[in-house]
Each structure stands twice: as C-alpha cells, then as structure tokens.
C-alpha cells in the first residue's frame, strides 16, 4: 500500500517540537505572529495530516468498496485502516461500531433519527444539560416537537459544573434518552460522564456523549464509560474537516434503521424492496469523505504518538497560567471556573462587546472566538449575549497568553 502513514517514535512532549509540525503556526497576520487561540472551534493540522490527504489524491485515490482495480483496493484498505484507528482511539470493541459521518452534528442527527425517534412517544423526555452546543440541542428539539415529547435541561452550578444530583432529580419514567457533552465548548467544564451514564443505566436509559471538546485532549475509553453512543468531529482533533465518527454499541446499531438511503448501505435492491447492509455500512449511504477519513486516521496516529502525560501537564499549565494572567486584566470577568476543565476560557470585558474585543485582538495577531458559541441557552443562563473565548491546543505556549493579555489591555485603552 502506498498511502504512507506516520509512525513517529514516541518523543517527550516539547511544545516547540509540536509547533514545528504545524506549518500554519509560522505565518503572520497583519505583520504579527499568529497566536491561534481558537482550537475549540477548529484545530490546526500537522504536516502529516495535510500530506496524508494530498497523498491519497496523488497516489491512491479511487472510490471505495466498489471496483476491483488496484487504486480502489488501496483506497479501501486505507479507509478501513482509518476506521480501525478510530476504534482503537475510542477503545471500541470492534471497528464495526464506528460509523463515518460528516461530523458530530450528523452523528447526533443520525442517532436522533434512527435510535431515539422510534422509541419516543408523546409526553416522553430527553435529558440534556444547560451547557450544550446547538448541535446537541436542535436535533432533539426537532424530534421532540415531531413526537409531542419534551427536552429537559439539567442546570449548571454557578461555577459552571454540572452536578450529578441535577440528573438524579430529573430522571423519571418519562426519560427515554440522555445526550450530554463530555466537555463544554464554552466553559471547558468536564462532565462526570461515567457517573451520569451509571445513573442512567440503572434506570435503563441510554446515553449519547458529545466528545467534540474532549477528544482533542486525550484518548477516550467508551467501554470504561459504558457510553451507548459517542461522537466527535475530525477537525477538532487536528484532522480534516468534513469527517467525524459515531461510535455506537453494536447491540444498538444492529437494531437501528438506516438514516439515509443510497449507495453502499444496501444488501439487495429492487423497485419494491430493499434490504440493508449490516452496520456500519448501513449508515454510510453514498461516497464518503474518503481522503479526509484516511487523513483523520493519520491525525489519530499523530495523537497516539504524543506523550500524553506531557500534553496533559502542558495544557493544565496553560489553563492555570491563562486564568491567572487574565485575572490580572482590570475588570475582566471569567466564566465557568469548575475544578475539572478542558483548556477553554470564556470571558467578557465590561463595556466592550465580545465582537469588538475579538476584532481588536485580531489586529495583534490573536485569534479568539466571540459570540454565543452556538450555545444560546447557556448564554441566557450566564446572563450575557456573547462572550469572548480563548481555547488552547497542544501547540499553544505561555508567551501567546502574554500576547493575548497585552492585546486585551490595548482594547481596554481604546474603549476607555
């Protein structure tokens, strides 16, 4: 097979070595070095991922699972190998439990349509939390409306944490499904997912975990969590956009009807009858994002080869350093300071709207997100219309926090 896959020897974590893997980090914006603090929206890509996607097209591109020729064979083998890498990254029992999707949004819609809608009746409830991303709210509101069911949100505490008691109090005989973030895309809060799942399973309620903001920060063990479904987007774990994964327990997947109809997902087709393929093919109608999926496998190889204790120590240091430095900025308000957090900080500066703040720091080369972060219910809960957000990846450094802090001070001067 000529699609090259990366097999770096494991090297001790060194942020400067990591940075050298990401070509975009050496560019400038407005003549200033890029300070990319928006990885929670989408992470940058290491060279090996960029090369892998290009190499599929340069060397081994053809449609998969169809033709018998050499290129089709190479592409199919590489695509299947990527699926196996994702299965190992999530510690799934089998590659067949991994469905390729466009991203977490499609994965959640798939589960809503093919798993939850058929078991949902009038008066039933789907439990979420107040801190969910719209992608983990809207599909549920849509099917709830269709079925006369209701979406119930478990509240967050003042510090942004989601106490288990909130679930215990709201789970009832009407609760048919629970769908929760593993980590908040705004507050960074890491939810006690294993405990929530244990609580739900004791009542026979299946749980989906949206891992978009957790998967970039380390390997996931879906078996230890006992998650029924786990979803993530490739572009947030340093892989390509347009591809992501849905993990589902085979016991669930094998009983679920298809999400979309088309090529690849069938067993036999005539004009009056169609039988469907087994999972995961049943849920993968049409030609998938072939090169992107293969490159996602390479991104996972890249992550697997990181010194994770080193990464965790680095990200924890960055989060603590950024929290301290941001607190030094006059009047800055930080949101969500729960104990267990991913490296994400949402903040606001009184008197300066987040969009203005983002525009001003951008001119210093600093990329932060501003707005409602696709989490309008959470904004309402926090009593704000918008916040700014700095989110950190494996490649960020303390000196970038310093650039952010001085850019924020500059914004304060401009608006004083």
């Amino acid at each position, binding site marked *: 097979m000529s699609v090259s896959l990366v097999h770096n020897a494991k090297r001790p974590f060194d942020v400067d070595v990591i940075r050298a893997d990401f070509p975009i980090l050496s560019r400038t914006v407005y003549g200033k070095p890029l300070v990319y603090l928006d990885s929670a929206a989408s992470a940058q890509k290491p060279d090996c991922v960029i090369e892998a996607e290009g190499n599929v097209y340069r060397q081994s591109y053809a449609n998969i699972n169809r033709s018998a020729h050499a290129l089709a064979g190479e592409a199919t083998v590489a695509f299947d190998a990527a699926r196996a890498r994702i299965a190992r990254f999530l510690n799934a029992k089998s590659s067949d439990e991994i469905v390729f999707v466009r991203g977490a949004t499609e994965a959640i819609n798939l589960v809503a349509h093919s798993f939850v809608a058929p078991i949902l009746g009038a008066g039933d409830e789907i439990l979420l939390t107040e801190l969910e991303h719209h992608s983990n709210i809207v599909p549920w509101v849509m099917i709830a409306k269709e079925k006369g069911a209701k979406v119930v949100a478990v509240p967050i505490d003042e510090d942004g944490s989601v106490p288990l008691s909130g679930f215990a109090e709201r789970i009832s005989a009407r609760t048919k499904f629970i769908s929760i973030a593993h980590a908040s895309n705004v507050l960074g809060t890491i939810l006690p997912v294993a405990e929530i799942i244990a609580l739900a399973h004791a009542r026979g309620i299946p749980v989906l975990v949206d891992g978009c903001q957790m998967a970039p920060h380390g390997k996931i063990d879906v078996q230890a969590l006992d998650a029924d479904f786990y979803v993530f987007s490739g572009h947030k774990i340093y892989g390509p956009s347009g591809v992501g994964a849905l993990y589902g327990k085979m016991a669930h997947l094998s009983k679920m009807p298809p999400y979309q109809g088309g090529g690849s997902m069938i067993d036999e087709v005539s004009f009056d009858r169609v039988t469907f393929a087994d999972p995961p093919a049943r849920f993968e109608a049409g030609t998938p994002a072939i090169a992107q999926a293969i490159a996602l496998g390479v991104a996972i190889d890249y992550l697997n080869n990181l010194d994770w204790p080193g990464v965790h120590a680095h990200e924890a240091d960055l989060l603590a350093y950024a929290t301290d430095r941001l607190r030094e900025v006059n009047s800055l308000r930080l949101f969500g300071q729960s104990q267990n957090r991913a490296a994400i900080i949402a903040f606001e500066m009184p008197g300066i709207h987040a*969009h*203005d703040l983002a525009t001003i720091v951008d001119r210093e080369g600093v990329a932060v997100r501003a707005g*409602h972060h696709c989490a*309008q219910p959470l904004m309402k809960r926090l009593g704000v*219309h918008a916040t700014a957000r700095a989110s950190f990846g494996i490649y960020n450094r303390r000196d970038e926090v310093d650039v952010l802090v001085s850019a924020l001070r500059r914004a304060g*001067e*401009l*608006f004083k």
Partner: protein
Amino acid sequence: MIDSDLMDLYQEIILDHGRHPRNHRDVPGATHEARGHNPLCGDNVKVQVMLVDDKLSDIAFTGNGCAISQASASLMTDVLKGLSEQQARELIVAIQALLKGEEPSTDPALADAIDRLMPLSGVSGFPMRVKCATLAWHTTRSALDGQTAPAKTE
C-alpha cells in the same frame, strides 16, 4: 501603537455613538416597526418609525450588540430623521456601498447625510464586521416595507 485600520474602525465618533446611542428608545404610536437579528452573532435590534405625510418624523431603535452595530443604528436614526421615505430608501442602498468601500452614488441632496455617515466607512476594512453595521439598516427597510418577519443578516 494602535493599528491605523482599527483607528479608522473605532473612530471617536463611533465609540461615542456606541457608548451613548442616540434615539435608543421606543417610538410611541409608531407607524412602522421591525425586528432584526444576526443569527450568527446574536445581535438584535428593533427599529420603530413614525411616518407622517411621507416623512420620517421620528425613528428610534432598541436592542443590543457590539459597538459597530450600536453606533451604526444610532447614526442611522440621527441621519434618517426628517427625510422622506424615498430618501431614506436611497440612503439604505448607499450605505451598503459605503460599507463595502465603494463610492456611494446618491442624489446631491443627500450629500450632507452621506457625510455624516462617513465615520462608518472604516468598517469596509473589516469584512467580518460589515453585517454588524448593516443590521439596523436592513431592519429599517423591513419596517418601511411593512414586513412582519424579522430582518436577518444571513
């Protein structure tokens, strides 16, 4: 030193209108009204107009958003007040050109109004912020059109 494009965007007059928006209130008995919303950033605005004998005898707005959206709405109400509906509609077209960095072509009678809107021209250097500035103007057009659906920038 602060970047010169930023100084163009956040001119003192823009900051002043952003901080102390003019006509930020309701228009009692308004003849026309519309809401506008930028779904991507969450900015929202309500514009109310009193149209008497083809003249905008009063126009005001409420809502919240960034300095650019508030300043644009504020300047807009200042400038549109007293104009005819036709002139207001001409300015709504002209402002789009101004925000794209183009020369707005209008009736010479509106030259003074355009001059007063020039502080908004700095937005043209910030393509991601043009929608912040246009929201209130789209909303005014919706109000004049008598539309009931909220104006959107998307």
